[in-house]
């Protein structure tokens, strides 16, 4: 059994008995920008599953500046006849294949290390890249939908005592702070897409991703769950910054891909949808779960540095809109998500 077989099982779990909801994708062509990242890789897994199990006949093009690396990382996808790898950077493209029926615009890394070290390139990729993709998409007369990946961060920070962030919650961000560059760029990108929808009639649907977990996510990324998993898989200890009261939620990769594709097909044009799990968990509890499920059962160390324990934040999506418009539900809970992710990395 190859390590990729578990991903097929993941896709089956996330789709459940709803494969028929993808009938509109049958024998059409999808293009994903940023196609070799976490989102693109999982959408590719899902399309491969739909084609293999349900004979959907979708053709997928993964546009990415890292297409050649993807061949090494996911040879089972890169070698398929229904998947085409296309080397390209959204900062420079002027056209996309004209026989494209659907576009998922996912280009732009959410890695805050890159945003801070290379803010100009980050903005170019998100803002200029979105402009280029919209312009190219507007030339395709028969385009059915374009799903623009924004970020849950565009709503601004969630106050500790506030309810989960709905698509309509907004608070201002200081646009002079470099830490807000990614969120502000995503806000600009959403507005560019809105402009194209209004002026050219582009069928734009917007997705606002929150936080995810699963295979294809690199463990060196600067997020709590990645750190915990990386530390646990190295035998620990798990080092917890702050006092562990910060709250996040995590959606598994195959659920995320299922939601993306459903929003592509069924999302209302002009609407924005949160994508993520509404089930919050404190980082202390999360670290405890990772420690329990990891073979090494590492100990957990709280950051005891004076002054470092004060920070806490809460960031949770309200996903009522996606549930109401498209009937979307989280199928793989956090417990299973952590276990499956550990199994992927350990090969067990």
């Amino acid at each position, binding site marked *: 059994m190859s390590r990729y077989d578990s991903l097929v099982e993941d896709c089956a779990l996330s789709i459940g008995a709803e494969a028929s909801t993808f009938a509109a994708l049958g024998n059409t062509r999808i293009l994903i920008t940023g196609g070799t990242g976490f989102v693109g890789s999982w959408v590719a897994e899902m399309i491969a599953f739909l084609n293999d199990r349900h004979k959907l006949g979708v053709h997928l093009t993964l546009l990415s500046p890292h297409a050649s690396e993807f061949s090494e990382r996911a040879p089972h996808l890169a070698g398929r006849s229904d998947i085409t790898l296309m080397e390209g950077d959204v900062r420079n493209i002027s056209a996309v294949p004209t026989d494209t029926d659907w576009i998922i615009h996912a280009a732009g890394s959410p890695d805050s290390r890159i945003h*801070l*070290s290379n803010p100009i390139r980050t903005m170019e990729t998100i803002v200029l890249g979105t402009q280029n993709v919209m312009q190219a998409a507007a030339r395709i007369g028969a385009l059915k939908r374009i799903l623009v990946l924004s970020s849950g961060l565009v709503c601004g920070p969630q106050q500790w005592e506030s309810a989960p962030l709905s698509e309509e919650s907004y608070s201002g961000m200081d646009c002079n702070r*470099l830490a807000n560059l990614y969120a502000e760029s995503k806000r600009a990108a959403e507005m560019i897409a809105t402009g194209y929808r209004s002026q050219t009639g582009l069928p734009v649907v917007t997705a606002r991703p929150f936080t995810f977990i699963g295979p294809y996510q690199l463990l060196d990324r600067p997020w709590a769950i990645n750190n915990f998993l990386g*530390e646990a898989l190295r035998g620990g200890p798990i080092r917890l*910054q*702050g006092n562990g009261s910060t709250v996040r939620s995590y959606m598994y990769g195959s659920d995320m891909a299922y939601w993306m594709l459903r929003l592509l097909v069924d999302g209302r044009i002009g609407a924005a949808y949160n994508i993520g799990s509404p089930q919050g968990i404190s980082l202390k509890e999360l670290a405890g779960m990772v420690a329990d499920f990891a073979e090494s059962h590492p100990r957990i160390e709280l*950051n005891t*540095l*004076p002054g*470092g324990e004060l920070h806490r934040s809460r960031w949770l999506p309200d996903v009522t809109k996606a549930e109401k418009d498209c009937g979307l539900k989280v199928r793989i809970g956090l417990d299973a998500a952590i276990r499956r992710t550990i199994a992927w990395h350990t090969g067990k």
Partner: protein
Amino acid sequence: MPNILVSDPTLRDGNHAVAHQLTLESIETYAAAADAAHVPIVEVGHGNGLGASSMQVGQSLVPDREMLIAAREKLTQSKLGIHVIPGFATIEKDLRPAIDIGVDVVRVACHCSEADITQRHIAYVRERGKQVFGVLMMSHMLEPTRLAEEALKMETYGAEAIILMDSAGALLPPDVSSRVSALVETLHISVGFHAHNNLGMAIANSLAALESGATIIDGTARGFGAGAGNAQLEVLIAVMHRVGYETGIDLYKMLDAADLAERAIIPVIPTIKSTSIVSGLAGVFSGFAKHVDRVSSKFHVDPRDVFFELGRRGIVAGQEDLIIEVAQALSAGELRIEAEKVEA
């Protein structure tokens, strides 16, 4: 419960003051005394940190490995810390063996505008499960907003605290307050401060840092360190205790450790010499003092002119070879003309 973490680089910054000639016996003697005083972190090594022993910045009397093993054996309560500048220290050759010896805290340092170079070293220390701080040196050279952005990079790389170093002793208390405050407002992790005493501000600057939200503070016995020395640790602890900060350090034993350091390991107690004042005014790294004195004497030029010219050029640690270039040019009369042009 201590609310301030004290880190003591007597056996690292002090090495600058003796051209990196600290002996094994000195390291063992002071490490044991600091440990007895419950100093939380004792930093050990070449003045420029791990892997820095070289012709360019000075060769250590004792190799890194031997210094760390000696200190490790004497530290029963205190954590063993090291200063690591990527470029001097490589991961495989230096950092891996240091952690294998038993280093607890790694302080990954860079020039204040170059945080990007610390990513791999910080990530490696996190991988090894050890505590890692980011250190921004020469912090007077960057305004508070950019300093906070560089610090934020280090936080995203995995640093668990950020230390601002006033490496040139060039800052005054309001400068320290604005810089520390910018970091405290921007970061989610602890902020620390490391003073030098070129303008006689080391204790005042350290207090300003604490009042602005810093919770980690550096100081050395008798101020033993580069140039005019650091914040004098035993004074700093006394002042902090007077103000009401808790450090967990036994003051009497710290005073004993400082007395012992004066007797056993410090050949000349740091004072604020004229060149140190000029170094602080010019904003040049305190560790340059010995090099500048030596080279100035060789080329028969005024070391104060050398410092001001180095400051005008924005020279930073690692560019020690330019001291000779400046001294040569001054000696040849070239720079005086240029300096006049600049002033005009």
